[in-house]
Protein backbone atom coordinates (compact mmCIF):
# COMPACT_ATOMS: atom_id res chain seq x y z
CA UNK A 1 0.00 0.00 0.00
CA UNK A 2 1.19 3.52 -0.69
CA UNK A 3 2.22 5.62 2.25
CA UNK A 4 -1.11 6.94 3.43
CA UNK A 5 0.40 9.96 5.17
CA UNK A 6 1.70 11.32 1.87
CA UNK A 7 -1.77 11.61 0.32
CA UNK A 8 -3.68 14.82 -0.02
CA UNK A 9 -7.19 14.79 1.45
CA UNK A 10 -8.69 14.75 -2.02
CA UNK A 11 -6.60 11.70 -2.97
CA UNK A 12 -7.50 9.98 0.30
CA UNK A 13 -11.22 10.51 -0.32
CA UNK A 14 -10.85 8.93 -3.75
CA UNK A 15 -8.93 6.00 -2.27
CA UNK A 16 -11.55 5.38 0.39
CA UNK A 17 -14.46 5.61 -2.01
CA UNK A 18 -12.77 3.06 -4.29
CA UNK A 19 -12.30 0.80 -1.28
CA UNK A 20 -8.49 0.83 -1.49
CA UNK A 21 -8.23 1.53 2.22
CA UNK A 22 -10.49 2.43 5.13
CA UNK A 23 -10.57 5.47 7.33
CA UNK A 24 -9.38 3.28 10.21
CA UNK A 25 -6.28 2.34 8.19
CA UNK A 26 -5.72 5.94 7.17
CA UNK A 27 -6.21 7.13 10.73
CA UNK A 28 -3.93 4.48 12.25
CA UNK A 29 -1.15 5.56 9.88
CA UNK A 30 -1.61 9.13 11.05
CA UNK A 31 -1.82 8.21 14.74
CA UNK A 32 1.60 6.57 14.35
CA UNK A 33 2.86 9.62 12.48
CA UNK A 34 1.67 11.85 15.33
CA UNK A 35 3.67 9.71 17.76
CA UNK A 36 6.72 9.82 15.51
CA UNK A 37 6.50 13.58 15.30
CA UNK A 38 6.78 14.19 19.03
CA UNK A 39 10.21 15.83 18.67
CA UNK A 40 8.36 18.72 16.98
CA UNK A 41 6.19 19.37 20.06
CA UNK A 42 3.35 20.09 17.65
CA UNK A 43 0.62 18.46 19.76
CA UNK A 44 -0.51 19.55 23.20
CA UNK A 45 -3.05 16.73 23.48
CA UNK A 46 -3.08 13.56 21.37
CA UNK A 47 -6.45 11.83 21.08
CA UNK A 48 -5.68 8.48 19.38
CA UNK A 49 -8.63 6.58 20.90
CA UNK A 50 -11.06 9.26 19.83
CA UNK A 51 -9.47 9.24 16.36
CA UNK A 52 -9.94 5.50 15.87
CA UNK A 53 -13.52 5.64 17.20
CA UNK A 54 -14.37 8.49 14.82
CA UNK A 55 -12.70 6.62 11.94
CA UNK A 56 -14.80 3.50 12.68
CA UNK A 57 -17.95 5.61 12.58
CA UNK A 58 -16.77 7.21 9.33
CA UNK A 59 -16.26 3.80 7.74
CA UNK A 60 -19.73 2.73 8.87
CA UNK A 61 -21.24 5.86 7.35
CA UNK A 62 -19.41 5.27 4.08
CA UNK A 63 -20.68 1.70 3.98
CA UNK A 64 -24.22 3.02 4.33
CA UNK A 65 -23.67 5.61 1.60
CA UNK A 66 -23.83 8.48 4.08
CA UNK A 67 -20.29 9.80 3.75
CA UNK A 68 -19.95 13.57 4.26
CA UNK A 69 -17.51 15.72 2.30
CA UNK A 70 -14.68 15.19 4.84
CA UNK A 71 -15.61 11.61 5.70
CA UNK A 72 -12.81 9.71 7.41
CA UNK A 73 -10.05 12.33 7.01
CA UNK A 74 -7.78 12.67 10.06
CA UNK A 75 -7.02 16.27 10.96
CA UNK A 76 -5.48 18.23 13.82
CA UNK A 77 -7.31 20.99 15.70
CA UNK A 78 -5.61 24.14 16.90
CA UNK A 79 -5.93 24.14 20.68
CA UNK A 80 -7.93 27.36 20.51
CA UNK A 81 -11.10 25.55 19.38
CA UNK A 82 -13.22 24.22 22.22
CA UNK A 83 -13.73 20.48 21.86
CA UNK A 84 -16.32 18.92 24.10
CA UNK A 85 -14.72 16.83 26.83
CA UNK A 86 -11.17 17.31 25.53
CA UNK A 87 -8.67 19.65 27.15
CA UNK A 88 -8.59 23.07 25.47
CA UNK A 89 -5.73 25.27 26.65
CA UNK A 90 -5.21 28.14 24.17
CA UNK A 91 -1.52 27.46 24.83
CA UNK A 92 -1.91 29.01 28.27
CA UNK A 93 -1.21 27.89 31.82
CA UNK A 94 -4.39 29.68 32.90
CA UNK A 95 -6.57 27.24 30.90
CA UNK A 96 -4.52 24.11 31.54
CA UNK A 97 -6.88 21.21 32.22
CA UNK A 98 -9.97 23.09 30.98
CA UNK A 99 -12.43 20.64 29.43
CA UNK A 100 -15.20 22.54 27.67
CA UNK A 101 -18.70 21.13 28.04
CA UNK A 102 -19.42 22.32 24.49
CA UNK A 103 -18.03 22.06 20.96
CA UNK A 104 -17.00 25.01 18.79
CA UNK A 105 -19.20 25.49 15.74
CA UNK A 106 -16.30 25.11 13.29
CA UNK A 107 -15.16 21.78 14.72
CA UNK A 108 -18.79 20.62 15.03
CA UNK A 109 -19.18 21.37 11.30
CA UNK A 110 -16.06 19.33 10.52
CA UNK A 111 -17.23 16.35 12.59
CA UNK A 112 -20.68 16.64 10.97
CA UNK A 113 -18.94 16.25 7.61
CA UNK A 114 -17.04 13.20 8.83
CA UNK A 115 -13.58 14.50 9.77
CA UNK A 116 -11.54 12.62 12.38
CA UNK A 117 -9.72 14.35 15.27
CA UNK A 118 -6.08 13.34 15.85
CA UNK A 119 -5.57 15.79 18.68
CA UNK A 120 -5.11 19.39 19.70
CA UNK A 121 -2.12 21.26 18.36
CA UNK A 122 0.18 23.83 19.91
CA UNK A 123 -0.03 27.58 19.35
CA UNK A 124 1.24 30.85 20.68
CA UNK A 125 -0.45 31.61 24.00
CA UNK A 126 -3.96 32.91 23.25
CA UNK A 127 -2.80 33.10 19.60
CA UNK A 128 -0.53 36.04 20.44
CA UNK A 129 2.68 35.61 18.52
CA UNK A 130 4.25 34.89 15.16
CA UNK A 131 6.65 32.14 16.12
CA UNK A 132 4.93 29.71 18.49
CA UNK A 133 7.53 30.48 21.15
CA UNK A 134 5.04 32.06 23.57
CA UNK A 135 3.16 28.80 24.25
CA UNK A 136 3.11 27.63 27.87
CA UNK A 137 3.65 24.14 26.44
CA UNK A 138 6.94 25.08 24.82
CA UNK A 139 7.89 26.12 21.33
CA UNK A 140 7.05 24.05 18.28
CA UNK A 141 10.07 23.12 16.18
CA UNK A 142 9.60 23.58 12.45
CA UNK A 143 9.99 20.34 10.48
CA UNK A 144 12.21 22.44 8.20
CA UNK A 145 14.88 22.59 10.91
CA UNK A 146 18.08 20.77 10.02
CA UNK A 147 18.98 17.75 12.06
CA UNK A 148 19.88 14.09 12.05
CA UNK A 149 17.49 11.28 12.72
CA UNK A 150 18.30 8.46 15.05
CA UNK A 151 15.58 5.81 14.99
CA UNK A 152 15.17 2.68 17.02
CA UNK A 153 12.29 0.38 17.80
CA UNK A 154 11.06 0.06 21.36
CA UNK A 155 10.60 -3.66 20.74
CA UNK A 156 14.37 -4.07 20.48
CA UNK A 157 14.87 -2.93 24.03
CA UNK A 158 13.27 -5.85 25.83
CA UNK A 159 11.19 -5.66 28.97
CA UNK A 160 7.50 -4.98 29.50
CA UNK A 161 7.08 -2.37 26.77
CA UNK A 162 8.59 -4.53 24.06
CA UNK A 163 6.37 -7.47 25.10
CA UNK A 164 3.38 -5.18 24.92
CA UNK A 165 4.23 -3.81 21.48
CA UNK A 166 5.05 -7.33 20.26
CA UNK A 167 1.68 -8.54 21.56
CA UNK A 168 -0.25 -5.96 19.56
CA UNK A 169 2.19 -6.42 16.66
CA UNK A 170 2.59 -2.71 16.28
CA UNK A 171 6.11 -1.40 15.94
CA UNK A 172 6.65 1.62 18.14
CA UNK A 173 9.46 3.53 16.54
CA UNK A 174 11.28 6.01 18.71
CA UNK A 175 12.70 8.83 16.73
CA UNK A 176 15.39 10.94 18.21
CA UNK A 177 16.20 13.97 16.23
CA UNK A 178 19.39 15.81 16.92
CA UNK A 179 18.64 19.37 15.89
CA UNK A 180 21.47 21.47 14.58
CA UNK A 181 19.33 24.61 14.45
CA UNK A 182 15.76 24.80 15.65
CA UNK A 183 13.60 27.01 13.47
CA UNK A 184 10.20 28.44 14.35
CA UNK A 185 7.18 27.20 12.37
CA UNK A 186 5.65 30.66 12.47
CA UNK A 187 2.60 31.49 14.50
CA UNK A 188 0.26 31.61 16.06
CA UNK A 189 -0.96 28.45 14.30
CA UNK A 190 2.52 26.90 14.63
CA UNK A 191 1.46 23.42 15.74
CA UNK A 192 -1.08 23.26 12.91
CA UNK A 193 1.57 24.30 10.38
CA UNK A 194 4.20 21.86 11.67
CA UNK A 195 1.76 18.92 11.84
CA UNK A 196 0.56 19.41 8.26
CA UNK A 197 4.05 20.03 6.83
CA UNK A 198 5.52 17.02 8.66
CA UNK A 199 2.76 14.79 7.23
CA UNK A 200 1.33 13.74 10.56
CA UNK A 201 -2.06 15.38 9.97
CA UNK A 202 -3.73 15.66 6.56
CA UNK A 203 -4.86 19.17 7.47
CA UNK A 204 -5.42 21.33 10.51
CA UNK A 205 -7.66 24.12 11.61
CA UNK A 206 -6.01 27.46 12.21
CA UNK A 207 -7.11 30.89 13.27
CA UNK A 208 -5.86 34.16 11.86
CA UNK A 209 -6.08 37.47 13.72
CA UNK A 210 -3.22 39.33 12.06
CA UNK A 211 -1.71 36.61 9.89
CA UNK A 212 -1.67 33.56 12.15
CA UNK A 213 -2.72 31.18 9.37
CA UNK A 214 -0.91 32.74 6.41
CA UNK A 215 2.49 33.50 7.98
CA UNK A 216 3.08 29.98 9.42
CA UNK A 217 1.80 28.46 6.15
CA UNK A 218 4.48 30.48 4.35
CA UNK A 219 7.19 29.43 6.84
CA UNK A 220 6.54 25.69 6.43
CA UNK A 221 5.53 25.50 2.77
CA UNK A 222 1.82 24.71 3.01
CA UNK A 223 -1.45 26.39 2.00
CA UNK A 224 -3.39 28.48 4.50
CA UNK A 225 -6.49 30.55 3.88
CA UNK A 226 -8.16 33.12 6.12
CA UNK A 227 -11.68 33.62 4.81
CA UNK A 228 -13.65 36.85 4.97
CA UNK A 229 -14.51 37.96 8.50
CA UNK A 230 -17.94 36.48 9.23
CA UNK A 231 -17.60 33.39 7.02
CA UNK A 232 -16.61 31.06 9.86
CA UNK A 233 -18.37 31.17 13.19
CA UNK A 234 -16.21 32.30 16.09
CA UNK A 235 -18.47 30.53 18.59
CA UNK A 236 -16.44 28.24 20.81
CA UNK A 237 -13.09 29.61 19.64
CA UNK A 238 -11.16 31.11 22.57
CA UNK A 239 -11.37 34.84 21.83
CA UNK A 240 -8.30 37.01 21.28
CA UNK A 241 -9.38 40.09 19.27
CA UNK A 242 -12.99 39.56 18.31
CA UNK A 243 -13.20 42.04 15.43
CA UNK A 244 -10.27 40.30 13.71
CA UNK A 245 -10.28 36.59 14.70
CA UNK A 246 -11.25 34.25 11.90
CA UNK A 247 -10.83 30.49 11.49
CA UNK A 248 -9.52 28.81 8.36
CA UNK A 249 -7.96 25.59 7.05
CA UNK A 250 -4.26 24.75 6.72
CA UNK A 251 -3.63 22.08 4.09
CA UNK A 252 -1.04 20.89 1.61
CA UNK A 253 -2.94 21.82 -1.54
CA UNK A 254 -5.33 24.52 -2.67
CA UNK A 255 -7.96 21.92 -3.54
CA UNK A 256 -7.80 20.54 0.01
CA UNK A 257 -8.14 24.09 1.34
CA UNK A 258 -11.27 24.57 -0.77
CA UNK A 259 -12.69 21.26 0.46
CA UNK A 260 -12.09 21.95 4.13
CA UNK A 261 -13.11 25.61 4.01
CA UNK A 262 -16.47 24.53 2.63
CA UNK A 263 -17.02 22.42 5.73
CA UNK A 264 -15.83 25.05 8.20
CA UNK A 265 -17.95 27.93 6.86
CA UNK A 266 -21.61 28.57 7.36
CA UNK A 267 -24.11 30.78 9.14
CA UNK A 268 -24.25 30.37 12.90
CA UNK A 269 -26.94 32.13 14.93
CA UNK A 270 -24.73 31.73 18.01
CA UNK A 271 -22.18 34.26 16.63
CA UNK A 272 -23.69 37.70 16.09
CA UNK A 273 -20.99 38.51 13.50
CA UNK A 274 -21.58 35.33 11.51
CA UNK A 275 -22.79 36.24 8.04
CA UNK A 276 -25.98 34.69 6.75
CA UNK A 277 -25.15 33.91 3.16
CA UNK A 278 -24.79 30.72 1.17
CA UNK A 279 -21.43 28.91 1.11
CA UNK A 280 -20.32 28.46 -2.50
CA UNK A 281 -18.85 25.21 -3.80
CA UNK A 282 -15.24 26.33 -3.41
CA UNK A 283 -13.81 23.28 -5.19
CA UNK A 284 -15.94 24.02 -8.23
CA UNK A 285 -14.27 27.44 -8.37
CA UNK A 286 -10.89 25.86 -9.15
CA UNK A 287 -11.27 26.04 -12.91
CA UNK A 288 -7.71 27.15 -13.56
CA UNK A 289 -9.02 29.87 -15.84
CA UNK A 290 -7.89 33.34 -14.80
CA UNK A 291 -7.82 34.92 -18.26
CA UNK A 292 -8.63 38.60 -18.14
CA UNK A 293 -8.47 38.78 -14.36
CA UNK A 294 -6.83 41.94 -13.03
CA UNK A 295 -4.16 41.31 -10.39
CA UNK A 296 -3.29 44.31 -8.23
CA UNK A 297 0.35 44.80 -7.25
CA UNK A 298 0.51 47.23 -4.32
CA UNK A 299 3.57 49.44 -4.60
CA UNK A 300 3.62 50.07 -0.83
CA UNK A 301 4.49 46.42 -0.19
CA UNK A 302 8.05 46.97 -1.43
CA UNK A 303 9.30 47.63 2.08
CA UNK A 304 12.80 48.70 3.08
CA UNK A 305 15.14 45.90 3.91
CA UNK A 306 13.05 43.17 2.26
CA UNK A 307 15.37 40.44 0.99
CA UNK A 308 15.97 40.65 -2.78
CA UNK A 309 14.89 37.05 -3.23
CA UNK A 310 11.44 37.79 -1.84
CA UNK A 311 11.12 40.65 -4.33
CA UNK A 312 12.25 38.23 -7.03
CA UNK A 313 9.73 35.57 -6.05
CA UNK A 314 7.00 38.19 -6.05
CA UNK A 315 7.98 39.15 -9.61
CA UNK A 316 7.99 35.46 -10.50
CA UNK A 317 4.43 35.22 -9.15
CA UNK A 318 3.39 38.18 -11.30
CA UNK A 319 4.94 36.50 -14.36
CA UNK A 320 3.19 33.19 -13.62
CA UNK A 321 -0.21 34.84 -13.40
CA UNK A 322 0.50 36.89 -16.52
CA UNK A 323 1.43 33.74 -18.42
CA UNK A 324 -1.94 32.29 -17.38
CA UNK A 325 -3.73 35.22 -18.96
CA UNK A 326 -4.17 37.58 -16.02
CA UNK A 327 -3.29 41.23 -16.22
CA UNK A 328 -1.07 42.82 -13.54
CA UNK A 329 -2.11 46.32 -12.47
CA UNK A 330 -0.11 48.58 -10.21
CA UNK A 331 -2.27 49.74 -7.32
CA UNK A 332 -1.75 51.89 -4.26
CA UNK A 333 -2.70 51.08 -0.68
CA UNK A 334 -1.40 54.33 0.84
CA UNK A 335 -2.08 53.53 4.50
CA UNK A 336 -0.19 50.22 4.45
CA UNK A 337 2.63 51.56 6.61
CA UNK A 338 0.19 52.33 9.41
CA UNK A 339 -1.44 48.91 9.52
CA UNK A 340 0.89 47.36 12.10
CA UNK A 341 0.60 50.28 14.50
CA UNK A 342 -3.18 50.20 14.11
CA UNK A 343 -3.21 46.48 14.74
CA UNK A 344 -1.08 46.81 17.87
CA UNK A 345 -3.68 49.12 19.38
CA UNK A 346 -6.86 47.40 18.24
CA UNK A 347 -5.81 43.82 19.00
CA UNK A 348 -4.46 44.48 22.53
CA UNK A 349 -7.50 46.63 23.34
CA UNK A 350 -9.83 43.78 22.41
CA UNK A 351 -7.62 41.20 24.12
CA UNK A 352 -7.58 43.15 27.39
CA UNK A 353 -11.36 43.05 27.31
CA UNK A 354 -11.71 39.42 26.20
CA UNK A 355 -9.15 38.09 28.66
CA UNK A 356 -10.82 39.79 31.61
CA UNK A 357 -12.85 36.59 32.00
CA UNK A 358 -9.78 34.68 33.27
CA UNK A 359 -10.07 35.53 36.94
CA UNK A 360 -9.71 32.21 38.71
CA UNK A 361 -13.39 31.97 39.59
CA UNK A 362 -15.30 30.08 36.92
CA UNK A 363 -12.66 27.98 35.15
CA UNK A 364 -8.96 27.48 34.83
CA UNK A 365 -6.15 28.23 37.21
CA UNK A 366 -6.70 29.79 40.65
CA UNK A 367 -3.89 31.17 42.78
CA UNK A 368 -5.12 32.08 46.26
CA UNK A 369 -4.67 35.55 47.73
CA UNK A 370 -5.52 37.44 50.86
CA UNK A 371 -8.78 38.72 49.36
CA UNK A 372 -10.71 38.49 46.08
CA UNK A 373 -8.74 41.19 44.25
CA UNK A 374 -5.48 39.70 45.43
CA UNK A 375 -6.61 36.31 44.13
CA UNK A 376 -7.43 37.84 40.72
CA UNK A 377 -4.02 39.51 40.53
CA UNK A 378 -2.09 36.43 41.64
CA UNK A 379 -4.02 34.14 39.30
CA UNK A 380 -3.46 36.35 36.26
CA UNK A 381 0.19 37.00 37.14
CA UNK A 382 0.94 33.30 37.27
CA UNK A 383 -1.50 32.17 34.59
CA UNK A 384 -0.46 34.46 31.74
CA UNK A 385 2.91 34.51 29.98
CA UNK A 386 4.99 37.62 29.25
CA UNK A 387 3.60 38.42 25.80
CA UNK A 388 -0.03 38.07 26.92
CA UNK A 389 0.60 40.31 29.94
CA UNK A 390 2.30 42.87 27.71
CA UNK A 391 -0.68 42.99 25.36
CA UNK A 392 -3.28 43.08 28.12
CA UNK A 393 -1.44 46.02 29.69
CA UNK A 394 -1.08 47.91 26.40
CA UNK A 395 -4.78 47.32 25.81
CA UNK A 396 -5.70 48.45 29.31
CA UNK A 397 -3.65 51.61 28.80
CA UNK A 398 -5.06 52.59 25.39
CA UNK A 399 -8.61 52.08 26.64
CA UNK A 400 -8.09 53.94 29.93
CA UNK A 401 -9.61 57.32 30.70
CA UNK A 402 -7.67 60.14 29.06
CA UNK A 403 -6.02 57.91 26.42
CA UNK A 404 -9.01 56.32 24.70
CA UNK A 405 -9.38 59.05 22.06
CA UNK A 406 -5.67 59.50 21.47
CA UNK A 407 -5.01 55.82 20.89
CA UNK A 408 -8.04 53.59 20.48
CA UNK A 409 -10.36 55.96 18.63
CA UNK A 410 -7.50 57.14 16.44
CA UNK A 411 -6.61 53.54 15.55
CA UNK A 412 -10.22 52.75 14.67
CA UNK A 413 -10.24 55.77 12.34
CA UNK A 414 -7.02 54.68 10.65
CA UNK A 415 -8.57 51.23 10.34
CA UNK A 416 -11.40 52.82 8.35
CA UNK A 417 -8.78 54.45 6.09
CA UNK A 418 -7.05 51.10 5.53
CA UNK A 419 -10.35 49.44 4.60
CA UNK A 420 -11.10 52.34 2.22
CA UNK A 421 -7.71 51.80 0.53
CA UNK A 422 -8.77 48.26 -0.33
CA UNK A 423 -12.21 49.40 -1.52
CA UNK A 424 -10.52 51.84 -3.89
CA UNK A 425 -8.05 49.20 -5.07
CA UNK A 426 -10.78 46.69 -5.87
CA UNK A 427 -12.24 49.17 -8.33
CA UNK A 428 -9.11 48.57 -10.41
CA UNK A 429 -8.39 44.90 -9.76
CA UNK A 430 -10.01 41.57 -8.83
CA UNK A 431 -7.33 40.19 -6.52
CA UNK A 432 -4.09 41.47 -5.00
CA UNK A 433 -0.77 39.59 -5.07
CA UNK A 434 1.91 40.17 -2.40
CA UNK A 435 4.58 38.20 -0.54
CA UNK A 436 3.16 36.54 2.59
CA UNK A 437 6.01 37.27 4.99
CA UNK A 438 9.05 39.55 4.86
CA UNK A 439 11.50 36.68 5.54
CA UNK A 440 11.86 32.92 5.79
CA UNK A 441 11.63 31.22 9.19
CA UNK A 442 14.08 32.35 11.85
CA UNK A 443 15.61 30.35 14.68
CA UNK A 444 13.93 29.79 18.03
CA UNK A 445 15.36 32.40 20.37
CA UNK A 446 15.94 35.05 17.72
CA UNK A 447 13.93 38.29 17.91
CA UNK A 448 12.66 37.25 21.33
CA UNK A 449 13.77 40.33 23.22
CA UNK A 450 12.38 42.82 20.70
CA UNK A 451 8.58 42.78 20.45
CA UNK A 452 8.56 45.27 17.56
CA UNK A 453 10.93 43.13 15.44
CA UNK A 454 8.64 40.18 16.11
CA UNK A 455 5.56 42.20 15.14
CA UNK A 456 7.13 42.99 11.73
CA UNK A 457 6.53 39.37 10.69
CA UNK A 458 2.93 40.29 10.09
CA UNK A 459 3.56 43.40 8.01
CA UNK A 460 2.03 41.90 4.82
CA UNK A 461 -0.84 40.01 6.45
CA UNK A 462 -2.18 42.54 8.94
CA UNK A 463 -3.71 45.08 6.50
CA UNK A 464 -6.17 42.52 5.05
CA UNK A 465 -7.02 41.36 8.57
CA UNK A 466 -7.93 44.91 9.57
CA UNK A 467 -10.14 45.17 6.49
CA UNK A 468 -11.70 41.73 7.12
CA UNK A 469 -10.71 40.47 3.65
CA UNK A 470 -9.99 36.90 2.54
CA UNK A 471 -6.36 35.97 1.97
CA UNK A 472 -4.41 32.83 1.14
CA UNK A 473 -0.75 31.90 1.29
CA UNK A 474 0.53 29.46 -1.33
CA UNK A 475 4.02 27.91 -1.19
CA UNK A 476 5.87 29.42 -4.14
CA UNK A 477 9.49 28.36 -3.81
CA UNK A 478 12.56 27.88 -1.69
CA UNK A 479 14.86 30.71 -0.66
CA UNK A 480 18.64 30.47 -0.82
CA UNK A 481 18.64 29.20 2.77
CA UNK A 482 16.57 26.22 1.58
CA UNK A 483 13.42 27.39 3.40
CA UNK A 484 9.95 27.87 1.92
CA UNK A 485 8.47 31.21 0.93
CA UNK A 486 4.82 31.87 0.26
CA UNK A 487 2.93 34.28 -1.93
CA UNK A 488 -0.29 35.84 -0.71
CA UNK A 489 -3.46 36.47 -2.70
CA UNK A 490 -6.08 38.80 -1.23
CA UNK A 491 -9.63 39.12 -2.49
CA UNK A 492 -12.80 41.11 -2.26
CA UNK A 493 -15.10 40.44 0.70
CA UNK A 494 -16.75 36.99 0.38
CA UNK A 495 -14.91 36.31 -2.88
CA UNK A 496 -12.92 33.33 -1.58
CA UNK A 497 -13.81 31.56 -4.83
CA UNK A 498 -11.66 33.90 -6.95
CA UNK A 499 -8.90 33.86 -4.33
CA UNK A 500 -8.82 30.05 -4.47
CA UNK A 501 -8.98 29.99 -8.26
CA UNK A 502 -5.94 32.27 -8.56
CA UNK A 503 -4.19 30.32 -5.79
CA UNK A 504 -4.72 27.13 -7.78
CA UNK A 505 -3.06 28.67 -10.83
CA UNK A 506 -0.15 29.90 -8.71
CA UNK A 507 0.21 26.46 -7.11
CA UNK A 508 0.38 24.76 -10.52
CA UNK A 509 2.91 27.22 -11.85
CA UNK A 510 5.13 27.02 -8.76
CA UNK A 511 4.98 23.22 -8.62
CA UNK A 512 6.22 23.31 -5.04
CA UNK A 513 7.01 19.74 -4.01
CA UNK A 514 9.90 20.13 -1.57
CA UNK A 515 9.68 18.02 1.58
CA UNK A 516 10.96 19.23 4.93
CA UNK A 517 13.96 17.40 6.46
CA UNK A 518 11.69 16.06 9.22
CA UNK A 519 8.83 13.95 7.90
CA UNK A 520 6.84 11.86 10.37
CA UNK A 521 6.49 8.70 8.29
CA UNK A 522 9.39 7.66 6.12
CA UNK A 523 9.67 5.19 3.27
Amino acid at each position, binding site marked *: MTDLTKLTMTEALAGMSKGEFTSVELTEAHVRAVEASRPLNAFITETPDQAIAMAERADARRAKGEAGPMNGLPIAVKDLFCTEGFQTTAGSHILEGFKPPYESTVTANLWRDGAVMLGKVNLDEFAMGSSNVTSHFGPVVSPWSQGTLVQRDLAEEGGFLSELTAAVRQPRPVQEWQWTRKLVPGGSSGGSAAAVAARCAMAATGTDTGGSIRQPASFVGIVGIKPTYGRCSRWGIVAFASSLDQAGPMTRTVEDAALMLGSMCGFDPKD*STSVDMPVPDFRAALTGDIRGLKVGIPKEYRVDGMPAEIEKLWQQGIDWLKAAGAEPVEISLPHTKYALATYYIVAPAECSSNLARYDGVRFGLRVEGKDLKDMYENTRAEGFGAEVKRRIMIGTYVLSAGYYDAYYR*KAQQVRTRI*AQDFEQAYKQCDVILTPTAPSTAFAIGEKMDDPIAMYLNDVFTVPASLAGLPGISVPAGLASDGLPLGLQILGRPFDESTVLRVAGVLENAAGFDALPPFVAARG
Partner: protein
Amino acid sequence: MSLDKATVAKIAHLARIKVPEADQDHLAGELSNILNFVEQLNEVDTAGVQPMTSVAPHKLRRRPDAVTDGGIRDAVLLNAPDSAEGFFVVPKVVE
Protein backbone atom coordinates in the same frame (compact mmCIF):
# COMPACT_ATOMS: atom_id res chain seq x y z
CA MET B 1 5.13 58.59 25.30
CA SER B 2 7.34 57.23 28.02
CA LEU B 3 5.75 55.35 30.88
CA ASP B 4 7.17 55.54 34.38
CA LYS B 5 7.11 52.92 37.07
CA ALA B 6 4.11 54.43 38.81
CA THR B 7 2.04 54.34 35.61
CA VAL B 8 3.01 50.72 35.02
CA ALA B 9 1.92 49.86 38.54
CA LYS B 10 -1.39 51.61 37.92
CA ILE B 11 -2.01 49.83 34.59
CA ALA B 12 -1.07 46.50 36.16
CA HIS B 13 -3.61 47.08 38.90
CA LEU B 14 -6.32 48.10 36.41
CA ALA B 15 -5.55 44.93 34.44
CA ARG B 16 -5.61 42.87 37.65
CA ILE B 17 -2.15 41.47 37.04
CA LYS B 18 0.33 41.49 39.91
CA VAL B 19 3.64 42.92 38.71
CA PRO B 20 6.45 42.78 41.28
CA GLU B 21 8.19 46.11 41.78
CA ALA B 22 11.45 44.65 40.51
CA ASP B 23 9.85 44.04 37.09
CA GLN B 24 8.21 47.43 36.72
CA ASP B 25 11.17 49.30 35.25
CA HIS B 26 11.78 46.68 32.59
CA LEU B 27 8.10 46.55 31.69
CA ALA B 28 7.93 50.35 31.54
CA GLY B 29 10.69 50.25 28.91
CA GLU B 30 8.94 47.58 26.82
CA LEU B 31 5.53 49.23 26.95
CA SER B 32 7.04 52.64 26.15
CA ASN B 33 8.70 51.19 23.04
CA ILE B 34 5.39 49.81 21.82
CA LEU B 35 3.62 53.11 22.52
CA ASN B 36 6.35 55.03 20.68
CA PHE B 37 5.90 52.68 17.74
CA VAL B 38 2.14 53.19 17.55
CA GLU B 39 2.44 56.95 17.82
CA GLN B 40 3.23 57.13 14.12
CA LEU B 41 -0.56 57.06 13.69
CA ASN B 42 -0.57 60.75 14.56
CA GLU B 43 0.80 61.36 11.04
CA VAL B 44 -2.49 60.19 9.52
CA ASP B 45 -5.14 62.80 8.85
CA THR B 46 -8.33 61.32 10.25
CA ALA B 47 -10.43 64.47 10.40
CA GLY B 48 -14.05 63.50 9.78
CA VAL B 49 -13.24 59.77 9.45
CA GLN B 50 -15.68 57.46 11.20
CA PRO B 51 -13.97 55.01 13.56
CA MET B 52 -14.53 51.48 12.35
CA THR B 53 -16.78 49.44 14.57
CA SER B 54 -17.36 46.46 12.27
CA VAL B 55 -15.53 45.26 9.16
CA ALA B 56 -18.59 43.49 7.83
CA PRO B 57 -21.22 45.88 6.55
CA HIS B 58 -24.12 44.30 8.35
CA LYS B 59 -26.20 45.10 11.38
CA LEU B 60 -25.81 43.02 14.48
CA ARG B 61 -28.64 40.55 14.70
CA ARG B 62 -30.84 40.52 17.74
CA ARG B 63 -32.81 37.75 19.32
CA PRO B 64 -35.72 37.89 21.72
CA ASP B 65 -34.60 38.57 25.27
CA ALA B 66 -35.55 35.12 26.42
CA VAL B 67 -33.87 32.18 28.08
CA THR B 68 -32.86 29.83 25.28
CA ASP B 69 -31.00 27.33 27.40
CA GLY B 70 -30.65 26.63 31.06
CA GLY B 71 -30.77 23.77 33.50
CA ILE B 72 -27.07 23.10 32.88
CA ARG B 73 -25.75 24.06 36.31
CA ASP B 74 -23.39 21.12 36.53
CA ALA B 75 -21.90 21.88 33.11
CA VAL B 76 -21.40 25.51 34.12
CA LEU B 77 -19.62 24.51 37.31
CA LEU B 78 -17.67 21.69 35.67
CA ASN B 79 -14.36 23.57 35.41
CA ALA B 80 -14.67 25.71 38.54
CA PRO B 81 -11.54 25.79 40.70
CA ASP B 82 -13.81 25.73 43.75
CA SER B 83 -17.56 25.23 44.08
CA ALA B 84 -20.04 24.18 46.72
CA GLU B 85 -23.76 23.44 46.70
CA GLY B 86 -24.16 24.65 43.14
CA PHE B 87 -22.25 27.91 43.59
CA PHE B 88 -18.81 29.24 42.70
CA VAL B 89 -16.75 29.77 45.84
CA VAL B 90 -14.50 32.83 46.17
CA PRO B 91 -12.54 34.36 49.07
CA LYS B 92 -14.58 36.40 51.50
CA VAL B 93 -15.61 39.74 49.94
CA VAL B 94 -17.50 41.36 52.86
CA GLU B 95 -16.17 41.46 56.41
